[in-house]
């Protein structure tokens, strides 16, 4: 147990260290003092106003990470969270702006719509895999392209308030106010507020954790991920499990854009936030697919993203150094995890055989 924890923590630590060292070297090489840059980031990043912004940013990162992690739990790569959440957002925005129900119903309707759209879109990849053997990586990449460049662009023109002009202001009608999520409190004279969607994120995280770790369906999922053949012999229906995992992953992916849409934007427009689906993959990878890990790594990525702003403002170092750090963290993390996993297995083997020696002597 201790072995397990030790090696699980060692890898992200090594990865973060590698990222700090590597970016320090780069900063030094380009004539910037890394100590100054990092301490500025830390100072700015620990202010209340920054932390609120970071939390707001963490919400979609976290949900996206959870969506990806459900797939990872059974060795499925849902690269399609990106397309799923964008498509879900536009459809949910349309539904939310078309009806005006009392708040609880309105919110439920919007969220259920988003989850359904996400689930259907990723379920498609699941069905393609089980019925035709199409690898989910390829189908979800294709579905991303179709969702983002095709369907969403088409729907945006179709549903936009100004009837499809190409201006940057192209947007859908505003969602009825009963569907909005309030901000919990504001800081910096009301400029930044924390989205109450954070509660939805917490619920999603907790449900994810208990579903995967503590229910028999979650067990089936994990067992299939470890050994599809062993799982099959134990009574798991592999095809059904693949579809279940994809549908669940897509349903959660559907929620990724909701925080932004329902708290801040209130309509779907051309500038709607993109790329969170891919960040989610990084979050899940660094977070090792478990609740705490995903929460921490969502926060880390969000913090880097937000706090890096100070570098630019102060002119110390290019903000883009954060992009560099993010990349190195991920790459170092995946390699470190692969190495640590092997080391852990070796050590466990050794301790187990020592235990046997003790028993037999």
């Amino acid at each position: 147990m201790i072995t397990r924890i030790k090696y699980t923590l060692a890898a992200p630590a090594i990865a973060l260290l590698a990222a700090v060292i590597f970016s320090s070297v780069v900063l030094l090489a380009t004539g910037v003092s890394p100590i100054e840059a990092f301490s500025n980031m830390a100072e700015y990043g620990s202010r209340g106003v920054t932390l609120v912004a970071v939390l707001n940013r963490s919400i979609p990162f976290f949900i996206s990470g959870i969506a990806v992690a459900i797939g990872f739990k059974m060795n499925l790569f849902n690269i399609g969270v990106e397309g799923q959440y964008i498509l879900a957002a536009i459809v949910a925005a349309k539904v939310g702006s078309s009806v005006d129900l009392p708040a609880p119903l309105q919110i439920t309707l919007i969220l259920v719509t988003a989850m359904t759209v996400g689930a259907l879109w990723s379920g498609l990849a699941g069905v393609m895999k089980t019925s035709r053997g199409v690898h989910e990586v390829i189908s979800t990449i294709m579905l991303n392209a179709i969702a983002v460049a095709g369907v969403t662009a088409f729907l945006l023109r179709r549903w936009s308030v100004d009837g499809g002009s190409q201006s940057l202001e192209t947007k859908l009608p505003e969602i009825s106010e009963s569907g909005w999520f309030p901000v919990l409190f504001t800081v910096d004279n009301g400029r930044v507020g924390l989205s109450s969607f954070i509660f939805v994120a917490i619920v999603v995280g907790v449900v994810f954790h208990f579903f995967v770790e503590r229910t028999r369906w979650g067990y089936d999922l994990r067992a299939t991920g470890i050994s599809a053949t062993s799982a099959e012999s134990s009574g798991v229906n592999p095809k059904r499990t693949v579809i279940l995992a994809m549908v669940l992953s897509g349903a959660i992916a559907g929620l990724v854009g909701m925080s932004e849409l329902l708290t801040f934007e209130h309509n779907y427009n051309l500038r709607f936030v993109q790329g969170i689906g891919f960040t989610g993959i990084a979050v899940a990878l660094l977070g090792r697919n478990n609740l705490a890990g995903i929460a921490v790594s969502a926060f880390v990525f969000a913090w880097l993203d937000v706090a890096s702003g100070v570098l630019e403002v102060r002119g110390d170092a290019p903000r883009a150094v954060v992009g560099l750090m993010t990349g190195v963290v991920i790459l170092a993390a995946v390699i470190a995890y692969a190495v640590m996993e092997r080391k852990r297995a070796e050590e466990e083997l050794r301790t187990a055989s020592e235990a046997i020696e003790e028993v037999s002597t």
Partner: protein
Amino acid sequence: MSTLAVELEGITKRFPGVIANDKVGLRVEDGEIHAICGENGAGKSTLMKILYGMQPADEGVMKVRGEEIVLRSPTEAIALGIGMVHQHFMLADNLTVLENIILGAEPARSGVIDFKKAHEDITRLASDYGLNVELDDLVETLEVGERQRVEIIKVLYRGAKILILDEPTAVLVPHEVEALFQNMRELKAQGHTIMFIDHKLSEVLEISDSITVIRRGKTVATVKPEDVTARDLAELMVGSELPDPGTQLATVTDKVVLDLTGVTTVGPDGRDIVKNVSFSIHAGEIVGVAGVEGNGQGELVEAVLGINPIEKGKVLFNGEDATDWKVRRSREAGMGYIPEDRQRRGLLLSAPLWENDMLGHQTLAPFIERGFWIDPDAARRHTEEVIDKFDVRTPNALVSAHALSGGNQQKLIVGSQMSGDISLLLAAHPTAGIDVGAQAAVWEDLRTARAAGLAVMLISADLDELIGLSDRLLVMFHGEIVAELDPAKVTPRELGSYMTGASAQGDHS
């Protein structure tokens, strides 16, 4: 006076807990076809792998054409003119026949392959030996027999004079076997030496010049085919003495637990794998199914459990029609399963032991409460009981399954499967590849469970195990049950000849 092509002396190879080859000797004369016979697990393949440089021997001397050699890799064996055709072909499906043959030894001018030369050379080689293949076809499109010819050409192209064929007939249909034998005769006529592994005795007698029989890692005898009959050979393979079934009290009751009627299953290629099998197992009875590997026993178990569908026939389990049950239903109704390939079918290697214990019981108490909620504490306690009761050597129930030795993994599976509320245990090779101590423990567990009223279907290649445990012995050959025998009375000769198809019940009394 003929010379020896290959001479092996005192070859010993140990794997953890098992001695695969125990001072094996082998003398193969130049230009002969030499068969190596033995049961599954007798150590034939290991011996051939040693000769081909794939595994180093722990002890012993190898001589090729009188010269002592040490092999570190197949490449070195190839350089000495030794070539091997593996049972599972080493051919890339999406490359052409020609590409597969020349790979690694391409005739090329400054990196550009000289296809004309390759074509000519291989065509000449193939026609010299009567090995017909279409060089430009993708291997993917070839029949098994053609693939085998490609493999043979591949070793000949590299200049092999000594050919090792690992169970070449196992994958072939009869007319392909005939063609293979024709090729072998041609090769011999041109001065090649052929060693091949086989356990179909009629084939061995037909083609070989000499036969060496290996049993339990030891050379039993080398004989000439004209001096022996198939039954003599069967006896040599199985051994002159069968283990004593022991004085066990019969615990068979008259309650039928499993009843099969005319069960037939079909393989992916559409051929029948299990053919019209009917028998029943009672509570408190162990029914052993003997047979050479690949005669449908594994598929039979998988069909009963519900992994593979049953094409025709009927399965009754405790009186209920279980023909179309899926695995989960079978499990919930009380079937336990000890799979043949424990790592692929019975374990989650990177998961802790208690989750492995839960495998196959993940819908049942004590692992599950309120229908779907996992109870990790109860599960852990259950696993600790299994660990205690079945003597699984492990620090605790939280280590991963891959930290355990094979024997302990197996004890965990056996314990886990038998500690549930089951009335039928499907046990496939329950002691394969585990050490002697663990083996004895598993046997004892099976006997105890049987006494407690469990019905067991036992598949094994280990005759000690089958005869020592079974109340009744069935023999499967080519998917059919060819004999039902009394383990207390059966002779090795009898059992061997049924298993190898040398006789079928009816022409034997």
